[in-house]
């Protein structure tokens, strides 16, 4: 047997079904939003786990050797601290997609049956069991780089210039290389011997090692031992590549993801704030509506405490249902986003995960937050005297006494119904503000994300355009791309400019990309300190270097300093002559004369960058074909990649990221809109008698519609207006964080068009969400409305 007081609390839930539904929905969205907090941790945990399952290497050594006998490999495996070691051959060549040549990375696997490091597994089909078979990375198809399926054949160009075909037996990958597909090229997994056959190599060029103790000191000792063994056992060891080291707990893409995590927490925090405001407003209205009942309960002996506890019980029941619904929405929502993001950043899909922290937070916010949010309204209600409560008729007296009320009455240019709508907003200014705030947060978040995305896209596009080249040509055969090759390319119709270029990697306070360029190139540098290198320095291969802005900042290196960089052939001293302000390589690269790189790397030639006279895709395709024909006719075997493909892929990738960012803002928008529906429904319930009076004195449906619509639109417009400065400041804050992450300055863009789009979207969504409460208004019969209690 339960008391009448408790029964009242329970029946309260079904008494106003629409209100209960909206309250539950509000709490549910708030709780679901909390699950956004779970995403970064879950992605990190899942991908870290995935690196363990895939046996991702701790370090990768790249020795250039003519031969690496099996017995030496065996000896390397016995080195102290080596948990697992595999050798493989990596190569970069061309594949044919239709008639178009496409750069491709080949990853060799010594024995598909017995893999220990960077284990390639398949999600469809089977691993290669014979020569002439390969596995295509599943990211190739997802990123649109190569859509081949099991059963297809792939044509690969050998370093002798001829083409050989392979059968696709499976789709799969391994976390280390899958993560590269989106940013680099398609990845294909072949038997190691097949890679060597295509590339013309005689020995593996990569040693992948997992260390037992992954502390820097232990890994350093292990590397030293591996070097010694190789130097002793392999007579023709030419040089060492710079080490690739993965610290424990990191995964490919984890660094980029960390930058993104900031946005996640910002979104989640705003969603939480918006939801708490909304819960507060809702509970306030729920209690406010029952002022008369509170008076009656007091009149029949209800104490403040008893009445307060009764409403608290109702609030907790609403909170409980909302929490359950929110968790039910939050888990699939966070897992869906998580899966998408792990593919974006980690290049791999992950399974569903729950989060204990998110679960605890959900309960805290859903139950505790609701109880807390109801607190002030309950306190206020409990202070109402019996007389005040019983005299309450839902109509607010005292309108027109404040300055705001008076100011609003001056809007005489509006129709009467619009005037009434507007005045009703100031009549309940607190509630109007509380409704506008979540909308403002939603608009602000979307504007901030739009600004950050636009700024990022602009910076990316700028840095891509800076490179200036339309085609990259590289040597795929025995004969390097010498000065004659460059001259031949320049003679091809449709080519405006061609020049040598080489990429290199060095150690200078971390691994850094070096671009070897001539003094004048297609790269449009922006020297913000010091100078660029001269023709004479470029010709002489002078040891001078221009640092990317972030490199200079991070390493605290001034212009004029002489730095020592670790190349694969040993340390090299260079004089820093300038700092470049462009964002290529995230401003963390270095620029030096082409001949300087050839000199310290011991190479004889590099790649060629080509700028065509016309940038359109057809012209670039035509020029690339002509370059291939011309150079091949002159004894060069080349590969090429077309920049527009990468640019388009990048643009598609960026658009996707922007969509995700916008998508993550949706819970906040949802909260804003639910707030609006909630507020409008409360308004209608509050003013039911007023609606009855209006209908009694001749108000038509369109009059009522116009009045309530005006109210909704004005609140939404106020939210939009408030959202603009919020969006600007939030965007600035995010950019500030990103600038610190990237150690580079961005030109913050806050264009007008997203503001206008936000206005249109806000208004349209408002009209949409108002449909339901408006239906209630126009269907209300005047007699029922007048009798409404």
């Amino acid at each position, binding site marked *: 047997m339960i008391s009448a007081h408790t029964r009242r609390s329970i029946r309260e839930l079904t008494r106003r079904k629409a209100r209960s539904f909206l309250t539950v929905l509000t709490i549910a969205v708030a709780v679901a939003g909390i699950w956004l907090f779970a995403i970064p941790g879950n992605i990190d945990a899942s991908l870290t786990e995935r690196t363990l399952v895939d046996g991702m290497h701790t370090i990768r050594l790249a020795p250039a050797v003519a031969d690496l006998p099996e017995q030496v490999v065996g000896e390397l495996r016995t080195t102290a601290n080596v948990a697992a070691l595999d050798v493989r051959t990596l190569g970069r060549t061309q594949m044919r997609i239709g008639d178009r040549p496409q750069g491709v990375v080949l990853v060799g696997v010594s024995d598909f049956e017995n893999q220990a490091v960077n284990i390639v597994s398949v999600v469809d089909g089977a691993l290669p069991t014979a020569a002439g078979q390969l596995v295509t990375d599943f990211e190739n198809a997802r990123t649109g780089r190569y859509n081949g399926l099991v059963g297809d054949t792939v044509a690969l160009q050998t370093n002798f210039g001829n083409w050989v075909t392979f059968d696709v037996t499976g789709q799969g990958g391994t976390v280390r290389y899958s993560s590269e597909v989106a940013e680099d090229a398609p990845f294909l997994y072949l038997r190691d011997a097949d890679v060597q056959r295509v590339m013309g190599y005689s020995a593996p060029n990569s040693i992948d090692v997992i260390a037992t103790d992954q502390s820097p000191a232990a890994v350093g000792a292990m590397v030293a031992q591996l070097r010694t063994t190789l130097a002793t056992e392999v007579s023709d060891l030419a040089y060492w590549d710079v080490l690739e080291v993965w610290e424990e707990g990191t995964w490919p893409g984890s660094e980029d993801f960390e930058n993104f995590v900031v946005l996640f927490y910002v979104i989640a925090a705003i969603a939480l704030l918006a939801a708490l405001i909304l819960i507060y407003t809702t509970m306030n209205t729920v209690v406010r509506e029952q002022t008369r009942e509170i008076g009656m309960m007091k009149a029949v002996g209800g104490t403040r405490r008893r009445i307060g506890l009764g409403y608290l019980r109702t609030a907790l029941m609403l909170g409980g249902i909302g929490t359950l619904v929110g968790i039910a929405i939050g888990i699939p929502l966070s897992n869906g986003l998580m899966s998408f993001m792990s593919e974006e950043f980690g290049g791999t899909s992950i399974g569903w995960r729950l989060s204990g922290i998110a679960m605890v937070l959900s309960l805290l916010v859903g139950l505790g937050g609701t109880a807390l949010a109801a607190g002030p309204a309950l306190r206020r209600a409990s202070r109402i005297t019996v007389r005040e409560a019983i005299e309450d008729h839902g109509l607010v007296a005292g309108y027109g006494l404040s300055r705001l009320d008076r100011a609003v009455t001056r809007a005489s240019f509006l129709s009467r119904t619009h*005037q*009434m709508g507007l005045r009703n907003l100031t009549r309940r200014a607190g509630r109007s503000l509380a409704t506008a705030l979540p909308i403002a947060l939603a608009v602000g978040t979307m504007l901030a994300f739009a600004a950050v995305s636009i700024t990022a896209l602009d910076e990316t596009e700028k840095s891509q355009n800076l490179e200036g080249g339309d085609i990259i040509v590289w040597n795929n055969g025995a004969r390097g791309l010498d000065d004659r090759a460059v001259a031949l390319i320049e003679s091809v119709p449709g080519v405006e400019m061609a020049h040598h270029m080489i990429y290199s990697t060095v150690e200078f306070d971390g691994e850094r990309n070096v671009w070897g360029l001539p003094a004048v190139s297609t790269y449009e540098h922006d020297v913000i300190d010091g100078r660029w290198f001269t023709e004479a320095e470029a010709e002489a291969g002078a040891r001078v270097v221009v640092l990317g802005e972030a490199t200079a900042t991070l390493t605290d290196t001034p212009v004029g300093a002489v730095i020592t960089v670790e190349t694969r052939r040993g340390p090299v001293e260079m004089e820093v002559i300038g700092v470049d302000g462009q964002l290529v390589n995230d401003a963390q690269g270095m620029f030096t004369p082409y001949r300087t790189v050839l000199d310290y790397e011991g190479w004889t030639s590099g790649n060629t960058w080509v700028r065509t006279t016309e940038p359109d895709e057809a012209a670039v395709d035509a020029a690339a074909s002509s370059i291939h024909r011309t150079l091949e006719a002159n004894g060069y075997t080349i590969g090429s990649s077309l920049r527009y493909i990468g640019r388009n892929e990048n643009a598609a990738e960026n658009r996707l990221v922007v969509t995700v960012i916008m998508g993550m803002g949706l819970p906040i928008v949802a909260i804003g809109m639910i707030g609006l529906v909630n507020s409008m429904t409360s308004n209608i319930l509050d003013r039911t008698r007023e609606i009855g009076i209006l209908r009694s004195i001749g108000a*038509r*449906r369109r009059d009522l519609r116009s009045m309530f619509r005006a109210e909704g639109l004005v609140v939404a417009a106020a939210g939009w207006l408030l959202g603009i400065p919020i969006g600007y400041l939030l965007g600035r804050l995010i950019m500030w964080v990103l600038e610190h992450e990237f150690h580079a300055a961005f030109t913050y863009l806050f264009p007008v068009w997203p503001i206008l789009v936000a206005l249109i979207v806000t208004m349209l969504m408002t009209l949409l969400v108002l449909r339901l409460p408006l239906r209630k208004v126009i269907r209300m019969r005047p*007699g029922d409305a007048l009798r409404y209690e």
Partner: protein
Amino acid sequence: MYHLRMERVRDAPVEETVPLGPVIQLRGVEKVYRTGRVEYPALRGVDLLVEPGELVALVGPSGSGKSTILNVITGIDRPTSGEVVVTGRDLVDLSEEELAIWRGEQVGVVFQFFQLLPTLTALENAMLPLDFARTGTVAERSVRAQRRLEQVGLGTKLGNFPAELSGGEQQRVAIARALACDPEVVVADEPTGNLDSDTAAEMFDVFGKVNSDGTTIVYVTHDRGLAAAAHRVVEIRDGRVSDGGLT
């Protein structure tokens, strides 16, 4: 004999009329309120005829069905059965929207608790029915509403909000609002119920003047004195007209 106005021209007093009979005809009207599984018969076969220009008082104990009769006359509530013809229109046939338009043009309603809109000034409250009826231009509506407010003695308080008016003044605004569209019929549900006796008497003077201009008025009252001032007193008891329903 009731004369139906065939054409209403903006601010044009000249009307072509056709003799039709009583302005209000209720025949065998029943009204049952249903709340969940509970049924409450509020009217049990009411017959009531009111001639144009009559001043009729409805009296009876609380819960007898007086207010329900007013609601049925104004179309605010629909009868469960029976015939309701007011100002020549069969209300049973009209949709909610048509009823709202009809009320705005032909019926003025005065409520017990004034029920002014707190966000509108006295003038704006009085203009509201004219706005809803789209009568004339905004300036013309303002002039007409102003005239009505002057008629009820509130010419100096046009810009005041309800919160700035006394109870009597608020009820006068409510009457001005009810009269704004020059309705054929004014119904008032205990219009003086919340007023002191002096203010109530003043209020009733206003009704008297309006009625002397030809407007039919039906009002509910508990006050014997005010009921006595009517041309006819109709007594309602247990949802039936116990006395004076038919002229």
